[in-house]
């Protein structure tokens, strides 16, 4: 229902950016997300960036899973 793929932002031009994943590029609309910069990894759903992915949170999640037993908020 909510297919969204992490894309790396390569360039920003006003309300549009170029997002790339494994060499595939698409124009990404930034209407729903402020403050996007080249290098950010964003989730793209039907052509719109909906959130920036947090590297720190991702690493923490993986660490938690590896350690296990804990609930994360």
């Amino acid at each position, binding site marked *: 229902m909510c*297919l969204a*793929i992490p894309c790396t932002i390569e360039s920003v031009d006003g309300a549009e950016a170029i997002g790339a*994943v*494994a*060499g*595939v*590029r698409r*124009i990404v609309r930034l209407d729903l997300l402020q403050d996007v910069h080249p290098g950010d990894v964003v989730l793209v759903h*039907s*052509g719109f960036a909906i959130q920036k992915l947090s590297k720190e949170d991702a690493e923490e999640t993986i660490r938690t899973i590896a350690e296990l037993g804990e609930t994360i908020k």
Partner: protein
Amino acid sequence: MDRISLEHGAGGKLSHDLFTRVFASKYGNRHLSRAADKAVLRIGNRRIAFTTDAFIMSPRKVPGCSLGALSIHGTVNDLLTCGAKPMYVSASFVMEEGFPVKELGEIAEDMASAAKGCEVEIVTGDTKVVERGKADGAFVVTSGIGEVLSRVDVSGRNARPGDSVIVTGSVGRHGVAVLIARGEFGLATEIKSDCSSLTGLILPLLRKYGPMIHSLRDPTRGGIGTTLNEIALESKTCLRVEEAGIPIDPSVKAACDLLGMDPLYMACEGVMAIVVDPRAESQVLRALRKRGAKEAAPIGRVISIPKGRVLMTTSVGGIRHVGMLRGVSLPRIC
């Protein structure tokens, strides 16, 4: 269903059903098999493979492929899947009034070049013109004949439990290249179609390992997922494959992820699925890689049950079925 829809042309179950209901029931003869677009005929003491295909690619040129090149490579590869050396091809054109002669010349040039590359001759053909608007530019239909090599008996039916399943290259490139070239999804990539003839890879294998090669199939429309199902159905076996073993280019996978499509069902035009006696598996792989098929890989085995199904171990160790392509691949977003 009373009207032809796009799904009938997609190469999946609906295409098969259409063939069975409308054509096979009327043409019904012993040569018409489930693989409707090829036949092996005994003429005198020679086995002649005969195949035909219509090419309606849109757009007519995509990175790595053109309508002309595809019309030759596609038919040549089909002949190879019969275990035959491709020899002669016919070419018929249906053109729309107003179609530029220059472009027609380019199509012919591409066909000549492709034919030369795979050592076949275009020996006959036809042209027809329809009024403006009644055909999308130009359609090409090619038919081909070749002689089946001695000691070779290649058919989807011949896969047997224990056999090894190999693919000669990474999957989904052509389908994704065409979809992207259409421009509907706004994607830009370096992905090129894999359109090519497999004569140089397959004929030496057939000559050396002849009787050990049981099935050859090129996963065109419907992709490798459909092809594996066809083999399983025709041979009444199960194909047990490993997702981690199926070569897929990361860009092809990314494009499919973005579009919500499954690379297993995206067309290939330069890949062969080979079902081979397991004793020849490593030699066949070595031979393929030596001849330039660097991504050739074993993807699984033939087992007995469940008959007619394809079972896949996923990249994370789960197990699931791989179904036949359903309808046309439309992008899934929400």
